[in-house]
């Protein structure tokens, strides 16, 4: 029998989509029965009280969590998001409801043994509720009490060989698309570099030392399946330098209707017979493709590698063989001075272990931003404040046309003193001798 009446939430059990309300109720029932005979370390009815406080929030149209919360484990400055209910007497089960961020494996591949291990810890020491996964990538264990934090951390590290994720003004948990594990578009091993850099920068991840948060994300190609260009301060997006590989026989097979365009992604509606000219050649943003006499050709020098033709005909067109990545910087959400997507910094960089070239870019950026970034200023804002030119300087990058979408339209152009003959020293007297007042 449910502890609280939840008429509003009950509505959300209707409909075809998996209902989070039904799921939480199931967990509440499971904890009430306790068939496993667990000695629950936090209130047994924690999920009931969560539903209760959520129902109240639905009624009041206001959150019922207090402001902030600073909890954690010794040695780390982040990883746990403290949370307290503002109605602790009414809902004692969620008086403490801290969130533990657990570092996920790259690409989020699991075996059941591992997930059972996580849940064994969490059933005993937490609410039994999770978020799989947080938007940054972490496994999120949702709701426990302060005394359990060190216990959970001990069991995660000692039994599951797993660490916490990041929170606070530091390097947050890096994430990647699933890359070469099962995608023919992946231009580099996103999982390998995500894993390697997560390990290399453990210190930066666990102990906040930055002006503000900083995120890495790794996309295998410009499709952006982990949205690195929008959701990471340092975005690595795979690409290639040489020609798109064309299998003309398979192009013919697409034209003949043997292969479905976009691997059948639009088969839910009748879009007519595949028309390679209308759907591929004419859609190419640089118009660098042609289809004549049953032969598809691409003028690589004018291809911007937008992925469209590969996406439409994955069986016929393949990424080049000379692969690497593009580095883009500065994406952020609106606060404080407006949303930003990342700006292109390095057009092409090899992605090979031990990733020294990429790490050099990262560390040069950190050296600059850690020194110059203001309190709570994202990299994207520091770039705006000090100028893109400054970012080029600190990363020893030569300015190229690819750094801009369009050249500046205003004439407020700064020059360095040593670029200008005579420098800035002004000879007032000499000037007046030639130009009378």
């Amino acid at each position: 029998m449910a502890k609280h009446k939840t008429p509003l939430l009950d509505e959300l059990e209707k409909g075809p989509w998996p209902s989070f309300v039904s799921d939480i109720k199931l967990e509440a029932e499971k904890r009430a029965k306790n068939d496993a005979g667990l000695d629950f370390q936090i209130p047994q009815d924690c999920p009931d009280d969560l539903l209760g406080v959520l129902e109240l929030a639905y009624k009041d149209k206001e959150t019922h969590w207090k402001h902030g919360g600073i909890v954690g484990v010794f040695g780390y400055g982040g990883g746990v998001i403290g949370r307290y209910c503002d109605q602790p007497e009414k809902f004692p089960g969620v008086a403490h409801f801290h969130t533990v961020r657990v570092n996920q494996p790259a690409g989020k591949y699991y075996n059941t043994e591992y997930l059972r291990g996580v849940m064994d810890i969490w059933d005993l020491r937490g609410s039994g509720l999770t978020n799989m996964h947080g938007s940054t990538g972490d496994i999120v264990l949702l709701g426990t009490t302060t005394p359990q934090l060190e216990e959970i951390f001990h069991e995660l590290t000692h039994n599951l060989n797993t660490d916490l994720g990041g929170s606070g003004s530091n390097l947050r948990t890096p994430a990647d698309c699933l890359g070469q594990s099962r995608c023919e578009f992946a231009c580099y091993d996103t999982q390998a570099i995500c894993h390697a850099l997560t390990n290399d920068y453990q210190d930066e991840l666990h102990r906040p030392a930055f002006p503000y948060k900083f995120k890495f994300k790794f996309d295998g190609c410009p499709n952006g399946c982990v949205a690195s260009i929008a959701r990471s301060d340092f975005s690595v997006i795979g690409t290639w330098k040489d020609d798109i590989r064309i299998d003309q026989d398979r192009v013919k097979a697409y034209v003949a209707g043997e292969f479905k365009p976009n691997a059948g992604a639009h088969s839910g509606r009748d879009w007519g017979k595949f028309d390679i000219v209308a759907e591929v050649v004419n859609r190419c943003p640089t118009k660098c493709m042609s289809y004549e006499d049953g032969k598809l050709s691409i003028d690589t020098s004018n291809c911007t590698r937008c992925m469209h033709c590969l996406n439409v005909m994955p069986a016929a067109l393949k990424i080049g063989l000379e692969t690497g990545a593009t580095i883009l910087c500065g994406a952020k959400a609106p606060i404080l001075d407006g949303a930003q997507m990342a700006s292109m910094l390095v057009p092409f960089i090899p992605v090979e272990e031990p990733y020294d070239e990429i790490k050099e870019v990262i560390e040069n950026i950190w050296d600059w931003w850690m020194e110059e970034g203001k309190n709570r200023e994202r990299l994207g804002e520091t770039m705006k404040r000090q100028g893109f030119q400054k970012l080029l300087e600190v990363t020893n990058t030569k300015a190229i046309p690819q750094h801009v979408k369009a050249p500046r339209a205003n004439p407020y152009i700064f020059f360095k003193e040593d670029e200008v003959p005579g420098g800035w020293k002004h000879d007032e007297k000499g000037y007046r001798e030639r130009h009378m007042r």
Partner: protein
Amino acid sequence: MAIVEFKGKTFDVDEDGFLQKFEDWCEEWVEYVKDSEGIKELSPEHRKVIDFLQDYYKKNGIAPMVRILSKVTGFKLKHIYELFPSGPGKGACKMAGLPKPTGCV
């Protein structure tokens, strides 16, 4: 909120054990906090961090950025964690009586 009593003093604290009022800070508070923050013995280096945090807070009304704390005290972040295992925010600021760090933590 909770009231803590220790060695004849009372402290008004929040759930996370931060002082509600900076003015309530006193020597007894430092002694009271050190156990829960995993500190055995208070060294002059602990003092240096606490003193700087308090001076900075009195002067500027906010806690200093980690980089400034490191620069002024001369302690690398690693050493600050050796002194205060839960870090400069949860450990040192709490002990110095500064308000709880806020924001996206």
